[in-house]
């Protein structure tokens, strides 16, 4: 293992010499590879750069090591490697006996030598709908595929030196700005003025992200918007390539986009879930990304393995929290605590899972921390071979520069590390880092070893001098008659300085090692000068390292990962069970109504039998005496479990965005809602624009991945909205330019978009080759073709009526009006149109357009024959929707049976899921809830929540989960206290504030 401390000391000692060496190299050797096209001022100084490194252990690649071999380099390239090579007479020969040569490292995640982009300044504070960029570029400021990092590249001495010190010889650099970031370049770490000799490969790879960076434009304002923008751009690129002359639109960005599609693609997606999102998106367009990871990848190990992506991993492991104050510590989130334990195992876990990895210094405060972090990763199970590959051959392969970098083979760049021993050994020093055939000294490579015991006689007294410890930084001790004297010694290569005291005597010696002898000049406390010579009496004997701590190996078992990585996450998915609920009050929601003292048998995820005295067979029997069994609650309007923004909302229509792209399966609200009997939810886009985004229908399969949560085969839905939100009435004075600002304008948005969608559909059906695929219009076309269904946020009767008329004009029907607080005023028209309602029980007074909202709305709509549901739009209310349903009994006198249907069967009908869910009838899904009390009562608790015959929540399981959680938190905190006691870095506790979205949440989360 690398002795980290040792490296640090060695480096700091090496600094003065390194600088002098650097100066030498830059002035003399640097000229050897000067730009050939440039005129010379003075006499030319061209050199062959021919060096032979003899008697070395050469680690050609992670797979191959040659012992006692020679590496031959010329003109910045390796020209030979092997045993018994003929060494040209004019080669500079380096004796590498006992030393190791390794390919130097390549970092793929860097902005080395590339300046940040300056954002545009906008004169107005109004919404920025259009790009501020002049020229024939992409419509969106975050699309910068034309940016070529090579053209902006300027070497940076300080940054290069820091990277070299960490063992790196080259980086793939790019500008971390934008969603399409342009191309990066592979460059050698040689500093300023060396650009001509540093660029290994310009336009080596294309870079992407889900963050718009310095773009001043509104769109995209969410993660799902960033995904949609990329998807549309892939389509635009293909369309652009198909354009015939004369072109209607010249778009230099799309041209650049197309030109970079064959390059390796790198993606800074964010966390493990976003990497998965990007990988799925890439598949759609035949692109396999290499991900610039964030260190959380281990949390989706299996899913990431399945998509086959490679990862560039940071080694930025969190410090333990200071947990000495229990109240402060109690605020630290469970994932943060867990991450401290798991993060160092990230590289090992991915590597062991067979996922290709490279390692980066990105995320570290400075590259100087890299080796310590690497050691930690290796202590957590990353093998030496995998580590070396992740720093050499893998990055070279991923960047497409294996022909030039990554191994020590003839023909490749002379990029290698000269080490005093095997790279991973504690005692090993990196002596030199050769970059493109140039030497950058780190240590005194061919050091004289004058360690040992010496006899020294001064003023008639005999002293025993011992020089021990490390070759590159020895320790000095002086004794007289075996008594240790206070002394101080320092080595500077072949010179040394030594001072010591012996009673009243005080000697200061300056000496040199020359041909096996140590001698020099000295001065005593009286100022008398004298010559001295020390005679070696014994050779150096290395001491066994007793002080060294035992390596702390800490292997993490992926089977122990909580799923999701969150409080209340479990380590295994609940099994599908056969269960007989005995003697319950069963709310069938079917023709049998409410059955007292009935039995329900579930098997294979379905309701197998409903009746009395059912034979349990091999099913587990649950005594449900005094309890109620109902279909699981379905929340027709929910915004839980959504990552980075519930609203795209930056344009009047964003039908192209999909909530399904941004499901967050680790949101603890999923678990909380299970505790309230919720089994399924429609995750809706917000209501910031007339045409919002596509919904996701999920079952609350806590512990499953985002994709696994989606309801198989569910119809597609989309969010529309009306009223104050879409016309930005309550957004302040900086939101008055976007169309529409009135209800009159809202109608025209719909008419315009459906008109265009209809025309689009016709051209598409006719196979028009010039048609530009448009994800916005595609979604709208699906509505016209009755393949996608509208859930529309609505309050006021005028616009409700309007939207029904628009739909009728275009030959389709609105599926659901959600909120629909004035629905009661147009219930007859709604009934005639055939639309359903999903409303709040009793919300009102929060804005002007709900001034006529009444709590009897649900009852009235129901009485008029409109299929009516009650929804939450709120993470808190979502977990007690049964109580909200009870209010339909209170206000308006709906029967209890019908009221319960408003949160079970009716939302199932509105979501087209009623053939599977929403009632307890034979053949339907066993997605049901056992209640402790009458299900409409405030006193009822969901005792068991089942989805597809799997028990996802129960009061018993919850009790256990709380104990486990408390014990785990405590265990980790104790470990953190141990670590803090060892004196390492710690950090102050910090809490995470959960963001619970409502449909009018507008924060820009695209940045």
């Amino acid at each position: 293992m690398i002795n980290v401390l040792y490296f640090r000391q060695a480096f700091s000692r090496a600094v003065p010499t390194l600088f002098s060496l650097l100066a030498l190299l830059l002035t003399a050797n640097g000229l050897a590879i000067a730009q050939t096209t440039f005129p010379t001022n003075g006499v030319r100084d061209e050199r062959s750069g021919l060096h032979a490194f003899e008697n070395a252990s050469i680690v050609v690649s992670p797979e191959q090591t040659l012992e006692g071999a020679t590496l031959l380099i010329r003109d910045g390239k390796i020209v030979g490697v092997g045993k018994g090579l003929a060494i040209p007479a004019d080669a500079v020969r380096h004796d590498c006996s006992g030393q190791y040569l390794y390919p130097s490292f390549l970092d793929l995640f860097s902005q080395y030598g590339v300046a940040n982009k300056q954002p545009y300044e906008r004169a107005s504070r109004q919404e920025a709908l259009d790009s501020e960029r002049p020229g024939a570029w992409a419509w969106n400021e975050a699309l910068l595929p034309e940016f070529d990092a090579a053209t902006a590249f300027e070497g940076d001495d300080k940054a290069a030196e820091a990277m070299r010190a960490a063992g790196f010889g080259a980086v793939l650099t790019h500008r971390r700005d934008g969603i399409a970031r342009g191309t990066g370049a592979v460059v050698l770490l040689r500093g300023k003025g060396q650009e001509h000799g540093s660029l290994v490969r310009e336009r080596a790879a294309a870079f992407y992200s889900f963050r718009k960076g310095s773009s001043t434009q509104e769109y995209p304002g969410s993660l799902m918007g960033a995904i949609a923008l990329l998807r549309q751009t892939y389509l635009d690129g293909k369309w652009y390539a198909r354009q015939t002359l004369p072109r209607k639109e010249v778009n230099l960005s799309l041209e650049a986009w197309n030109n970079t599609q064959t390059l390796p693609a790198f993606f800074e997606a964010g966390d493990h879930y976003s990497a998965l999102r990007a990988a799925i998106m890439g598949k759609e367009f035949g692109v396999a990304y290499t991900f610039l990871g964030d260190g959380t990848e281990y949390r989706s190990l299996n899913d990431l393995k399945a998509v086959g992506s490679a990862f560039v991993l940071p080694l930025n492991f969190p410090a333990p929290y200071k947990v000495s104050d229990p109240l402060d510590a109690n605020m630290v989130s469970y994932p943060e605590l867990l991450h401290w334990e798991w993060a160092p195992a990230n590289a090992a876990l991915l590597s062991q899972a067979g996922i290709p990895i490279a390692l980066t210094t990105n995320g570290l405060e400075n590259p100087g921390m890299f080796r310590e972090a690497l050691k930690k990763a290796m202590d957590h199970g990353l093998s030496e071979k995998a580590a070396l590959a992740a720093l050499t051959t893998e990055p070279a392969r991923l960047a497409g520069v294996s022909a030039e970098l990554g191994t020590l083979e003839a023909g490749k760049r002379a990029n290698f590390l000269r080490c005093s021993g095997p790279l991973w050994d504690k005692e090993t020093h990196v002596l030199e880092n050769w970059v493109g055939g140039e030497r950058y000294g780190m240590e005194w490579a061919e050091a004289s070893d004058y360690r040992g015991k010496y006899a020294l006689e001064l003023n008639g007294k005999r002293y025993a001098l011992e020089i021990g410890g490390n070759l590159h930084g020895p320790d000095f001790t002086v004794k007289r008659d075996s008594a240790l004297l206070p002394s101080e010694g320092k080595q500077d290569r072949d010179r040394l300085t030594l001072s010591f005291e012996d009673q009243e005597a005080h000697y200061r010696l300056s000496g040199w090692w020359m041909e096996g002898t140590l001698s020099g000049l000295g001065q005593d406390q009286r100022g008398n000068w004298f010559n001295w010579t020390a005679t070696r009496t014994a050779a150096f004997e290395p001491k066994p390292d007793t002080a060294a701590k035992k390596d702390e190996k800490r292997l993490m078992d992926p089977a122990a990962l909580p799923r999701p990585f969150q409080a209340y996450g479990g380590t295994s998915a609940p099994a599908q069970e056969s269960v007989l609920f005995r003697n319950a009050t069963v709310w069938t929601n079917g023709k049998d109504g409410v059955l007292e003292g009935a039995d329900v048998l579930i098997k294979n995820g379905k309701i197998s039998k409903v009746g009395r005295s059912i034979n349990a067979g091999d099913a587990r029997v649950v005594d449900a005496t005094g309890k109620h069994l109902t279909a699981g609650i379905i929340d027709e309007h929910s915004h839980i479990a959504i990552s980075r923004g519930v609203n795209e909302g930056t344009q009047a229509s964003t039908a192209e965005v999909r909530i399904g792209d941004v499901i967050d399966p680790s949101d603890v609200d999923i678990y909380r809602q299970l505790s309230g009997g919720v089994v399924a939810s429609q995750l809706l886009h917000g209501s910031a624009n007339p045409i919002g985004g596509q919904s996701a229908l999920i079952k609350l399969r806590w512990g499953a991945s985002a994709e696994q949560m989606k309801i198989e085969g569910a119809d597609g839905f989309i969010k529309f909205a009306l009223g104050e939100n879409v016309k930005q009435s309550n957004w302040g004075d900086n939101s008055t330019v976007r169309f529409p600002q009135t209800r009159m304008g809202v109608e025209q948005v719909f008419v315009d978009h459906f008109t265009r969608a209809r025309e689009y559909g016709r051209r598409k059906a006719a196979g028009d080759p010039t048609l530009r695929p448009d994800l916005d219009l595609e979604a709208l076309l699906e509505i016209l073709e009755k393949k996608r269904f509208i859930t529309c946020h609505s309050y006021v009767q005028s616009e409700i009526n309007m939207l029904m008329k628009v739909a009728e004009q275009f030959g389709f029907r609105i599926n659901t009006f959600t909120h629909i607080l004035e629905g009661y005023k147009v219930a007859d028209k709604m009934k005639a149109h055939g639309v359903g309602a999903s409303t709040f029980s009793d919300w009102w007074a929060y804005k002007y357009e709900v001034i006529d909202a009444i709590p009897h709305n649900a009852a009235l709509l129901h009485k008029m024959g409109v299929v009516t549901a009650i929804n939450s739009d709120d993470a808190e209310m979502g977990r007690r929707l049964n109580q909200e349903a009870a209010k339909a009994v209170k206000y308006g006198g709906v029967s209890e049976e019908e009221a319960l249907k408003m949160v079970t069967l009716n939302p199932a009908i509105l979501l087209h899921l009623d053939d599977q869910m929403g009632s307890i009838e034979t053949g339907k899904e066993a997605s049901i809830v056992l209640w402790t009390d009458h299900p409409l009562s405030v006193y009822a608790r969901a005792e068991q929540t089942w989805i597809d015959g799997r028990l996802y929540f129960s009061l018993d399981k919850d009790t256990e989960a709380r104990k486990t959680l408390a014990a785990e938190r405590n265990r980790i905190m104790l470990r953190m206290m141990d670590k803090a006691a060892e004196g390492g870095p710690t950090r102050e506790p910090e809490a995470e504030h959960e963001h619970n979205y409502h449909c009018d949440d507008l924060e820009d989360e695209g940045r």
Partner: protein
Amino acid sequence: MNKLTTTLLIALLLLIGLTGSPVQGQQSPSPKGSFLLLGAVAHLGNGQVIENSAIGVRDGRFTLVADATVIRINPAEYDTVITGTGQHVYPGFIAAVSGLGLIEIGAVRATNDASEVGDYNPHIRSSIAFNTDSKVLPTLRNNGILIAQVIPSGGTISGFSSVVHLNGWNWEDALMAEDDALHLHWQQLLSREGWWVENARLESNEKYHTNTDKLYAFFEEARAYAQNPSPAPVNLRFEAMKGIFDGSKKVFIRCYEAKEIAEAVRFGEAFGLDYVLVDAGQAWQVTDLLKQYDVPVILEQTHRLPPYGHSDVDQPFKTPALLKAAGVRFGLSVGSGWDAFWQTRNLSYHAGQAVPFGLDPEVAVASITGNLAEILGLEARCGTLTSGLEATFLLSEGDVLDMRTSRITHAWIQGQAVDLDDHQRVLYRRYMSKYGLE
């Protein structure tokens, strides 16, 4: 329509006859006359129940609250007798720390009078802005909320609240306790960094000590000022605060985390204040402290999410029971947050929510009636069904803690029958009629 309801309706009509116009139930000058409510289950608001009660009201006050099975009653002494068999009678619910009557429509700035400019506003008085004609009030009255403490909510020191009943012609008329308490927001120890992003971090509030020291200094100056019988110059802020140092006015301190609670207690004790903690979501962690200093707490909203991902999923539901078990005096409120003024009609369900998580149902009732009256210092006027107190109470067909059964049929404020109609019911009837529905 069943017989009982008919009887009640007649009784109501009689009462209305006695008291004049029923328009939105606003109250005429002091009620005269008497009535007797017989046979209802009486939830006294102090934790006790009388299964078969006799409740007498005369000239606006309870003259009799007793077990009908053990005392002799002479119905002839009363102008009217109401039969309440099978029904439930409760003291009127109190909306403590509420923005009621100060906000009409959340998003419409012109209707928002809850929050004044400035950080230290002890001179601000909510009473004069209380809108007795708010369309929101009737929707609360018919859910049993008959009294409110109306609080200003801006800045660090928001100003003085007043307690009103919800049946006034104007604010003067509605006042029960004018300028009863000063409201202040304790500094948060953690401030939110980047609140706009998903899972924003809460970081240590660097200004905590600066701001808290400033608050201490302000109170010290105010206390010194109060010693001078004729101060010059006159400072309206300090004038307003005089009452909190002689114990005639209370101080309500809003805080949340355990440390903030401890700091608020230290502050209250340091100035010898008659103080109450508001919100105090994590009070269950520091019940020993609260018990030791006998500090009452007004918890806000059981219908809220737990504070942390690793919190027990039912933490807000069970906090009231934990405080009760520890012997901490507490009440419940829907609070003064953005949606609280209209959500307060669900106050009794917030109380009911605590019951399946361990709170005795009668204590749940007390937490929105008697306990609050005591915390507000009005226990001699309202909050319980007690002879001699103002007859502010209600009658329900079923358990009011449960939305499933809560059907309030009658309410009286200071003996005056309250019109339980509201704008929403009017609309309901109008559209029922439009559609020809029953």
